[in-house]
């Protein structure tokens, strides 16, 4: 069986714009949550969001590339640049070799709404301009990155709600392990503009704890009152082990398990403990591991009442004997939605590399479900050989990834 390793990582998020900044924030338990006053003006129930600075791409990309790039595409470009650099992949390599690209993304609202506004006002679609179509399609990230980085292998967007980023890694892993690709750029991207989250806010599932935004995202805590949306992008270079060794690439970690499931339930927005359990169990089975082998679980927990409870039940059911350390980095980042499954692999690998578990900040009082978990309330020194990362999405799509330190 071909082994699949990670040889590069890039991250652009509300807790840092590169892996060094993010590693520091994770260690310090620093929140990236703030208030976006534009959301209040637009009619949001909650203006809380991860605050992500737009990158300046003038000078990095030509006008044509920038004109076609959505906000989340810009974040993904920055993350991918960093990942390629770490993996020692330069322009010559990209020009002369086949690499695949699978990115998780599930919306691109800004260009759609702006185009609609122009058409309403001008009654002339030509005046929408040339970039809108390439910014507004769901595959905006993969189509832009594949053009910029001269991708010649598999090239598509994975849309699976809040599990998009995780599935992109799982599917990239599958492509490499089965011998269909030697290298795939996998990641996730998430827009943060005012248009992107209005309909989600309308479901009244966002926290309204406005007095201290950094306390608003509190996964597993008894007093949680909803999630905080966030965004950015993450990218990982997945590569076949021998291929990576031959290239002299840095080998950061190994992907050893991908478990997936769907809930088979009738409710589009509600999670399901059985589906979550099956995804985790399948990822362990594929990695030929038992629950005792997991040192750390990066939980999906978004800080919603129901979602966190269901995940706590599923984790407890599978890990009740060994109780590995659990934390939800969403306590610091907010819910990075389409990007989360990829960014949380980057966060967890940074913990693995630096031998600590990042805290589940704001976890002050457990509820009847989270009291059964071993939740890291503070930064905890810990050797992590193997971790598991959960991601669950609307429509009952579940993904669990198991990553191990390279041996």
């Amino acid at each position: 069986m071909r082994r699949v390793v990670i040889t590069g990582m890039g991250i652009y998020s509300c807790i840092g714009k590169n892996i060094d900044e993010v590693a520091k924030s994770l260690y310090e338990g620093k929140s990236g949550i703030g208030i976006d006053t534009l959301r209040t003006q637009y009619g949001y129930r909650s203006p809380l969001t991860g605050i992500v600075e737009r990158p300046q791409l003038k000078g990095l990309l030509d006008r044509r590339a920038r004109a076609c790039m959505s906000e989340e595409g810009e974040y993904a470009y920055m993350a991918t640049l960093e990942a390629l650099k770490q993996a020692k992949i330069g322009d010559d390599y990209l020009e002369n070799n086949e690499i695949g690209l699978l990115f998780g993304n599930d919306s691109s609202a800004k260009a759609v709404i702006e185009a609609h506004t122009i058409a309403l006002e001008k009654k002339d679609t030509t005046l929408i301009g040339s970039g809108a179509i390439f910014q507004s399609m769901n595959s905006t990230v993969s189509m832009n990155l594949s053009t910029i980085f001269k991708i010649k292998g598999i090239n598509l967007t994975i849309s699976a709600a809040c599990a998009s980023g995780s599935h992109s890694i799982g599917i990239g892993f599958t492509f490499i392990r089965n011998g269909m690709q030697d290298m795939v750029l996998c990641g996730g991207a998430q827009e943060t503009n005012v248009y992107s989250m209005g309909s989600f806010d309308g479901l009244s599932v966002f926290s309204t704890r406005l007095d201290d935004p950094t306390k608003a995202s509190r996964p597993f805590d008894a007093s949680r009152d909803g999630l905080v949306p966030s965004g950015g992008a993450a990218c990982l270079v997945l590569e076949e082990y021998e291929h990576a060794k031959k290239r002299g690439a840095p080998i950061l970690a190994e992907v050893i398990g991908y478990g997936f499931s769907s809930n088979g339930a009738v409710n589009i927005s509600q999670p399901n403990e059985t589906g979550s359990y099956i995804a985790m169990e399948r990822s362990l089975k594929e990695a030929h591991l038992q629950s005792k082998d997991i040192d750390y679980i990066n939980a999906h927990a978004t800080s919603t009442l129901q979602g966190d409870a269901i995940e706590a039940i599923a984790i407890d059911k599978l890990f009740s004997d060994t109780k590995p350390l659990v934390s939800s980095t969403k306590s610091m980042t907010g819910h990075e939605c389409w990007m989360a499954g990829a960014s949380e692999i980057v966060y967890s690998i940074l913990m693995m590399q630096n031998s600590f578990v990042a805290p589940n900040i704001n976890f002050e009082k457990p509820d009847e479900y989270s009291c059964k978990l071993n939740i890291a309330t503070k930064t905890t020194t810990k050797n992590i050989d193997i971790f598991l990362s959960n991601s669950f999405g609307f429509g009952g799509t579940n993904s669990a990834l198991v990553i191990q330190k390279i041996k």
Partner: protein
Amino acid sequence: MTREEVIQKVNTFLIEEIEIEENLLKEDALLKEELGIDSLDFVDIVVIVERYFGFKIKPEEMSNVRTLSQFYDYVYQQVNKK
């Protein structure tokens, strides 16, 4: 508006918004072959001209416009038609 004023405004948006290098902007420069203006750039030029000059370029009227000089003339005629 004089032809000189049209040239100045067109050159301004070609440099600032289409990001064409100033030294390429010669009257006999071919729009496509020498200035690199492709079909997608042209869509943006339609948008920009509407904003700068207040009229909408009709693609069929541009069929014989191949050089920058011809483009200046076209804009000059349209502006002064109003």
